[in-house]
């Protein structure tokens, strides 16, 4: 594995988006992973529609009645991948733009699909495997505990205590080997996380969090997706 890796430098990550006042982080995490996978499959970076997921994805947990992807009220990346697989794919952002509300009807147009899921899987709770899947398959959809993110401005977040209760969906786009930690008096490796709260939050919309011990549960819900090459079909 390379010591440092960043999919942004390789053109696989779209600009930071803003979910607005809507609990739709799960849809941004999903599209971010598929945007990266689609880039790997086709060589083109296309911004994908979160609003399609917000309006049209009501995929449910078959073992838990009433637990479904639910627009601004929340969802889960894996069920969103399942929806995308069943629906046939996701439209372009500009063809189905984001509105930050879930009161509209589903306007999915199958003829405008630009990215398709070939398969998706969960990655084991092992940081080397997470890094390997990141490098091989593109950005990963991850869950995180966001308690330190409400006040985060910059730097490598490496809290002494952080719950592993996951409440936010984000996108893992890379990692670094040497973010200086004054408390440890040494460089610490970190993950680079793309968030969906706009560019004015964090480090131009990004969050850096310590690698090494599942800090804030960042290693515990990791999904990788592979896209179909739509050009070759």
């Amino acid at each position, binding site marked *: 594995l390379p010591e440092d890796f960043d999919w942004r430098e390789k053109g696989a990550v779209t600009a930071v988006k803003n979910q607005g006042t809507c609990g739709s*982080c*799960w849809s941004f995490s999903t599209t971010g992973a598929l945007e990266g996978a689609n880039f790997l499959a086709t060589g083109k970076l296309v911004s994908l529609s979160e609003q399609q997921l917000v309006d049209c994805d009501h995929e449910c947990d078959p073992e*838990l009645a009433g637990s479904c992807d639910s627009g601004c009220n*929340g969802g889960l990346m*894996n069920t969103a991948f399942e929806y995308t697989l069943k629906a046939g794919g996701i439209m372009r952002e500009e063809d189905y733009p984001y509105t930050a509300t879930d009161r509209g009807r589903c306007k999915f147009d199958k003829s405008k699909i630009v990215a398709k899921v070939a*398969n998706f899987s969960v990655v084991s709770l092992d940081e080397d495997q997470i890094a390997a899947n990141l490098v091989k398959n593109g950005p990963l959809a991850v869950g995180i505990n966001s308690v330190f993110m409400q*006040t985060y*401005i910059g730097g*490598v977040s490496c809290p002494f205590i952080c719950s592993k209760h996951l409440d936010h969906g984000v996108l893992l786009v890379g990692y670094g080997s040497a973010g200086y930690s004054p408390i440890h008096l040494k460089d610490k490796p970190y993950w680079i996380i793309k968030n969906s709260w706009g560019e004015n939050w964090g480090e131009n919309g990004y969050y850096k969090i310590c690698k090494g011990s599942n800090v804030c549960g960042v290693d515990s819900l990791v999904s990788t997706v592979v896209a179909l090459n739509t050009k070759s079909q």
Partner: protein
Amino acid sequence: AAASEVDPLIRQVTDVHDDGAEPQQLLTAAEHHFSLFKARFNKSYGSKAEHDYRFKVFRSNLRRAVRHQKLDPSATHGVTQFSDLTPGEFRKRFLGLNRRLRLPKDANQAPILPTNK
């Protein structure tokens, strides 16, 4: 720029009296920083009652930022666009990972990849 503006204030505001009351000068400083916050993030409130409530929440979040700074010294914590929201409001409006949904038992497990070279 935000970090350099906010850091000194945060340290002051936490310096509360033993009875929990904030000294007047720190309250004034908090008011000043609340004004900066409102200007920077284009915040406006519909009534004086709402404004006063948001100021109270803002002060609480400043104290929270100080706690986070102590617990997370390698990052910088301070005023963000969410500083006038309670943790509950923040959770409801800006999060959304549905923890009731579980990974299906039959979810594909990614194959183990070689990590050596």
